[in-house]
């Protein structure tokens, strides 16, 4: 984390589905190597923001910059190159169900590197071992548990050593212990790979355990109402709603 330059910059972002505005005037920056939390109440547009950042939804207005490069104004090829620096872990894991875990992890490696099949097999085994799934190479996603699917999804997201890892509700549907293990894994990866991590979550335990910085999206006023380190936000909440959110309503 020696380099604390700005990695991602979101500028005046408006998000909308048709004429329905989800969030407006979002402004924040994410520093290289930090764990950045996007939190907010249900339906506030957290996941929608993530979808905008990874290129699945087009902004209604505003810019998203990666290392100063405008994502949505880039030419398709340049944008694809930027996307290759992302790794995304979807809420459901989103493993390709017709492929084994090894094939899931291998596919991006096959497509974007010149490694031989044997080398790929070795890399895949390593990635699966990193998430504690050594030996599950030949299993299909439907044959393993939800927690394992998430971890396999993480292995796939890490396949190309991404600069930025995006997590959509990583702890959703996980028991507290698996959820804690996933948090530890996220921190471990950040520390060892130096990746920037963006996490969408409303899991308080995770927010405090891993978050370096955060923004809070409000569903009522449809914009971000606070940003900063989650622990500081709890110590000095800017609005009653944030205090209520971060203290689980126990005032």
């Amino acid at each position: 984390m020696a380099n604390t330059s700005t990695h991602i910059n979101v500028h005046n972002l408006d998000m909308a589905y048709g004429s329905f505005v989800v969030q407006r005037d979002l402004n924040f920056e994410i520093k290289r190597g930090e764990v950045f939390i996007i939190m907010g109440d249900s339906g506030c547009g957290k996941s929608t923001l993530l979808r905008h950042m990874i290129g699945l939804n087009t902004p209604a207005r505003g810019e998203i910059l990666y290392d100063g490069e405008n994502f949505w104004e880039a030419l398709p090829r340049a944008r694809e190159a930027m996307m290759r620096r992302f790794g995304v872990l979807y809420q459901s894991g989103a493993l390709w169900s017709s492929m084994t875990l090894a094939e899931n992890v291998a596919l991006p490696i096959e497509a974007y590197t010149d490694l031989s099949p044997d080398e790929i097999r070795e890399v895949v085994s390593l990635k699966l071992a990193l998430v504690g799934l050594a030996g599950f190479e030949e299993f299909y996603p439907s044959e393993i548990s939800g927690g394992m699917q998430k971890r396999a999804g993480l292995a796939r997201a890490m396949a190309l050593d991404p600069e930025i890892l995006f997590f959509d509700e990583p702890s959703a549907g996980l028991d507290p212990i698996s959820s804690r293990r996933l948090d530890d894994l996220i921190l471990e990866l950040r520390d060892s790979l130096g990746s920037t991590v963006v996490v969408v979550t409303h899991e308080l335990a995770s927010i405090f355990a891993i978050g370096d910085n955060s923004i809070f999206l409000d569903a009522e006023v449809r914009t971000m109402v606070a940003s900063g380190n989650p622990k500081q936000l709890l110590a000095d909440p800017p609005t009653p709603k944030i205090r209520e959110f971060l203290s689980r309503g126990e005032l």
Partner: protein
Amino acid sequence: MEHNINLESEISTHPYEVRLSRPTEDTLLVQLSGNWTLGKGLPSSGEVEQALETGQRVQRVIFDTQGVTDWDTSLLPFLKKIMELCDHHAIQVEEDGLPQGVRRLLQLAMAVPAKDTGGVSKPAGFLARIGNATIGIAEPGAEMLSFIGDTFLVFLKLLRGRARFRRSDLTLLIYECGAQALPIVTLISFLIGVILAFVGAVQLKQFGAEIYVANLVGIAMTREMGPMMTAIVLAGRSGAAFAAQLGTMTVNEEVDAFKTMGFEPMEFLVLPRLLALTLMMPPLALYADFLGILGGAVVAKGLDVSFMQYFEQTRQALSPKHFALGLIKSAIYGVLVAIAGCLRGIKSGRSASAVGSAVTSAVVTGIVFIIVASAITTVIYEVIGV
């Protein structure tokens, strides 16, 4: 002034009863008694509402529920309606007379005012619906055109050798679309041959020209029926399967995962399916042609036309041109069925029922495409005289 309403339903043994009275000029006393359970139906609050809205102005509503022996959800909508009406008319409600549990449930139900989500809107008027439907017609058309355009672009990419997809996917799809379809194609095309022969035989027999059944079956199968029946079978088999696969992948975010990893779904998912179906349709159609002719021969045998005679007659009637024209059609059907299946799958919504309608729509679109394309190509063949 006192009236007594007995809301007892016929099946009920313990009636629920509402009794309205006015202890003072501006106070309405609602006395409830009996058994208020869902099994007895949902009581109407109409009488109370009428009492509140007509006659002398009521300032205060009080309740007496001493006589209620049992209650569940059926009591709540009744009271909620009264409360909302009182709220609307600024009438004071005293809940003291209600059971503790009822009061707490009512508080919960009224705590969060209904949000104006625009979800429960009044059904649009007749003209508005016609207008919306007319505007809506253009949308799927535009969607389809842009999909066909995208398909063409990835096809060009394939020709330049730049398309990326897993070769193993293509092999598997070819096996699923081709070899696995053989039994059903065998059955259908043999029977179509039999049916054509029967229909023809009845007419031709009148002229003693049974032998020409061979011409009829041979030409009909190779030029039209072989390719068309194969295409319809594959629209039901493979077109539906494509829509279901791609729709489920959309629901599971698998398509999103492809996109964010830089794999274009058109290239990675649609192209192998398009290739598999387009490659497999002509050989299957050719196979169907022969099975249909065989079906005709079996019927002709019953008309005392020997197999040898029948096949000799067929050989004279058919030239490679007839097969070629049919196979061109079948390749076109292959492209269309694959496009219909993939389009519906990729555009599927994110729910189980959306995948269901994507599959239905894929089969319907596929069959419509086949019939329309068949008509157009037949007219073109006729015009250019082949």
